């Protein structure tokens, strides 16, 4: 039943773009459709049930299923299970994290980095999105946006290596500085938090840009005009109008970027220095360097997951309160 509905939605969705108006009238009056619609919407309860059935099923089987597997692995003493040996459930894998302080450093570092880089990404992309949405004519907006999206079609690894030849000792930046006579020996940009930041913001900018842009783009112009008429300066208008009205976009962009940054592996490994180890690296270590310590790796992943979830939860709550406070 639910599946039927999805097919219908999809085919009708296409009709929206091209079909002439009477189409919907015809659909609405078509006998079988009416019967179908009446069946669907007989009661609010049934309506909700039909809407909810498929997503719940999907979430349970597709989202939760693999994670339950992982949770199970995190609780057993050995995996892959050697044939003929009974597996035992244990909490030792979790205790290993809490029992040894060497794991705390990368853990907190990851959360701090993710937060800092999310903030940097926001600061850098907000003006860009603002410019796009407010100062570029609507005709060209898509084109300008597309221009920014093009580089993101290149894979993470290739882009990361491009950053290496940008920032290396004989990299483009050092060559240019030297050519202008500003330096005589190269500045070691690479393998520091700086190079890592450059690489990560490069990867996350897009995920911030799109939600910000779509939030700014639908901001009613009239409000800004009215405020300008009342003599509000640019900064005040931004602070009192644009910012509160785009808080939804900021919050979803930040959530997205934060989540993605906690999981970054290749870029921090390639661009970071000896003292910038992130937790994903620690976790991955249990899966390939050490080889057969899947349960510990899985347990650490669960810990990371729980922490990120709590932080985004708190963040969303804060944003929600901020929004409420503003409308009051």
């Amino acid at each position: 039943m639910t599946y039927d509905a999805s097919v219908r939605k999809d085919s009708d969705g296409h009709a929206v773009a091209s079909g002439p108006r009477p189409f919907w009238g015809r659909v609405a009056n078509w006998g079988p459709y009416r019967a179908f619609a009446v069946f669907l919407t007989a009661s609010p309860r049934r309506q909700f049930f039909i809407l909810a059935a498929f997503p719940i099923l999907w979430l349970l089987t597709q989202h939760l299923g693999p994670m339950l597997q992982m949770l199970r692995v995190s609780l057993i003493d050995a995996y892959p299970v050697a044939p003929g040996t009974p597996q035992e459930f244990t909490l030792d894998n979790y205790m290993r994290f809490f029992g040894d302080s060497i794991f705390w450093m990368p853990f907190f570092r990851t959360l701090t980095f993710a937060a800092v880089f999310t903030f940097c990404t926001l600061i850098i992309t907000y003006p860009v999105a603002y410019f796009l949405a407010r100062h570029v004519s609507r005709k060209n907006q898509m084109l300008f946006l597309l221009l920014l999206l093009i580089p993101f079609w290149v894979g993470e690894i290739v882009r990361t290596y491009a950053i290496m030849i940008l920032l290396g000792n004989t990299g483009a930046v050092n060559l240019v500085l030297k050519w202008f006579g500003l330096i005589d020996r190269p500045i070691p940009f690479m393998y520091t938090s700086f190079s890592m930041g450059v690489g990560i913001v490069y990867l996350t900018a897009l995920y911030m840009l799109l939600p910000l842009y779509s939030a700014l783009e639908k901001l009613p112009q009239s409000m800004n005009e009215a405020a300008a008429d009342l003599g509000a300066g640019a900064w005040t208008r931004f602070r009192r109008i644009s910012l509160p009205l785009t808080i939804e976009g900021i919050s979803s962009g930040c959530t997205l970027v934060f989540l993605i940054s906690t999981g970054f592996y290749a870029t921090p490994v390639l661009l970071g220095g000896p003292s910038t180890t992130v937790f994903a690296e620690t976790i991955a270590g249990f899966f390939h360097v050490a080889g057969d310590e899947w349960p510990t790796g899985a347990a650490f992943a669960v810990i990371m997951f729980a922490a990120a979830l709590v932080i985004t939860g708190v963040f969303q709550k804060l944003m929600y309160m901020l929004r409420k406070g503003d409308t009051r």
Partner: protein
Amino acid sequence: MTKLLMNRRRFIGTTALAGAAVASPAYLRRAAAQGSGEVNIWTYNDFVPEAFKEQFEAETGIKVNVRLVDDQGKQFNLLAAEQPNPTVDIMTVAGHRFLQFIDSELLAPLDTSRLSNWGNINPTFSESDWATINGEKWGAPILSGMEVLSYNTELVSEEEALTWDTLFSEKYKGQTAYIIQDMMSIVMLKLGYDGNMVAYMDDPEKAAAIVEEAKQFLIDHKPLVRKYYESGAEFQQMMVNQDIALGHSWNGPAAALINDGFPLAMTIPREGSYGFVYTYNIANNAPNVDNAYTFLDAILASPEIGASMTKASGFISTYKDASNYLTDLEKKSTSFPEEQLANLQFFRAEANEMKYSLVDPAVEAVKAA
């Protein structure tokens, strides 16, 4: 998409068949008798020479499916997830990682009597101490690598490169890099201990003290290092970008730089170093065991094949006389003076469980320090 897929399959199938029909009817009959004409291989880029693969497919009618991998751990994880019915027949394991695979029952012992070309392998590799475990052979050695000290010849003198101490000297502060796991073994060797830890199997306390000492050494010298790297490509990029002047590396990535004309050289320092061997192994419960043996025997057939693997990867061939097929530059990038080779020993697996239970946390501690 499906169509494209079909077309490609059919294309490969047809060429292989056509080639086989012309080349050798006898082989074809044998391959057909073995059922599905396929062999599935997990290996690194360039470890199966393209020319060899084409010839093998044409002569035997067995289709070679190569799945490219990029490290040992991924093969282990993938195979563990696939057991007990793996899709793979042959995989590429480094000799000192055997035990881990064997303990998890992922590998089948190798029946060398089925390989008429087994004798083409240099006995240094085929009969070495690490190669026999539980009285069985587990893999056919194909390429050998070693941990070396590589240096930019325009910035570092050969004399300086003859000792690991240079890697930890104030003079090259911020211009060095190493793989930290590998460096733990080397530092133990440098401090005068057995980096394989086989000698301390009965004395876990001593072992722990040694690892602690090596760990402390690396922590003390952490301010001097530019980067703890992981892959050979990173090392090459750091050299090219002149982010580093010298570093520990495997010989393969360094050889590739030398062959490209980069002013690089490598040594096996006097404190000693470790070597390892890549082997082709047959997976436990492999679906096409017979084809796997046919493939292994064919790839061991000629030193020329060994030489082409060396050319592509930069690692040293395990085949007798393979160097006859290398250019002078290639020879230079894959050989060492006798007195340096005397410093080399192979990684061994016997004490791995104890060793890595100590070394892995130590590595984490060095990174966190």
